[in-house]
């Protein structure tokens, strides 16, 4: 490697590393940090909350109030859902409705999956209207997220 005038080279141009050194640097074993899926889900859920266009909830609820047949049907549906949850289910274990991905746990991954479904335009199941306001939206996502945090590392569904 041509040393030359160090000051001139330092000020005028970039010092060049030999190819052998560059190749060795690139091949140097790098510590690959494993990123757990819950970390990905937490970040992406925050992105859904921050970036998703806000629902025009005031106008929506006003239109909803004027449409009493829908309101009546929604109430009946809610009563039916409540009945389904409180009646005896027999010997089989029930999967919590918040366990969106059916993995046996209610955790941040469930909140994230519901957020993704809403964001992609998929129609979530009516049973996911966790706050009973007649629509499945980001507020229901929040409920799952809060529950996941309360359950710690993910409670059994």
């Amino acid at each position, binding site marked *: 490697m041509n040393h030359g005038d160090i000051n001139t080279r330092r000020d005028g141009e*970039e010092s060049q590393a030999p190819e052998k050194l560059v190749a060795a640097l690139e091949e140097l074993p790098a510590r*690959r940090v494993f990123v757990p899926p819950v970390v990905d889900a937490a970040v992406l859920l925050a992105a859904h909350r921050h970036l998703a266009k806000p629902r025009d909830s005031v106008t929506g609820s006003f239109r909803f109030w004027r449409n009493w047949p829908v309101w009546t049907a929604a109430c009946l549906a809610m009563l039916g859902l409540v009945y389904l949850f409180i009646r005896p289910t027999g010997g089989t274990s029930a999967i919590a409705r918040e366990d969106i991905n059916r993995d046996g746990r209610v955790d941040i991954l469930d909140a994230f999956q519901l957020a993704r479904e809403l964001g992609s335009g998929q129609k979530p199941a009516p049973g996911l209207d966790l706050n009973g306001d007649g629509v499945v939206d980001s507020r229901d996502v929040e409920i799952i997220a809060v529950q996941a945090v309360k359950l710690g590392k993910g409670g059994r569904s």
Partner: protein
Amino acid sequence: MTVSTRSKSPVESQNQNDSRTDQQLIAAINAGDVAAFEVLYFRYRDWVVGLAYRFAGDEDLALDVLQETFLYFLRKFPGFRLTANLKTFLYPAVRNLTIAARRKAGRYQSTEAEQNQLEQLPGADGPVASGNELAVALANLSEDHREVLLLRYVDGLTLAEIAEAADVPLGTVKSRLHNALETLRQDKGARQFFEE
């Protein structure tokens, strides 16, 4: 240093196939496209967490910094304008958040990072692989010199991008790179890489 591998999740694999440029993704995110943010997240996630680990020397801290970095990035939307390489924007965020995390944890991670680099070395009597010799030589560099060298030749940033990321004059970056290379050239273990 160890290398750990794992299979990619379906979400990761799907996002890797997205061919949009960073500028196009930024524009989409500004328009509220959450899927575009996902693509950008997976595109830079491993670099961010690897950089955080380079600074922190601790995996848990690195994961915390990863989250904080992307949450900080997220709060820039809508309205974020990408004027350079995205790594140029993320680098100071990762560095500053790692410093804050270190202070909170009460650790001196420069020593810990150096120890992590050295822990894989064989005993004094055994042969030393050239990769380990280089790792030792790198550990002997000052943090500023080592960082410029790695940003240039491992992360692929130009000197101008490094200057912007590190918020130092271009001349300083050139000087640090020059000094880093000179130090490696004089190092017993690393001089083999300078020989023809």
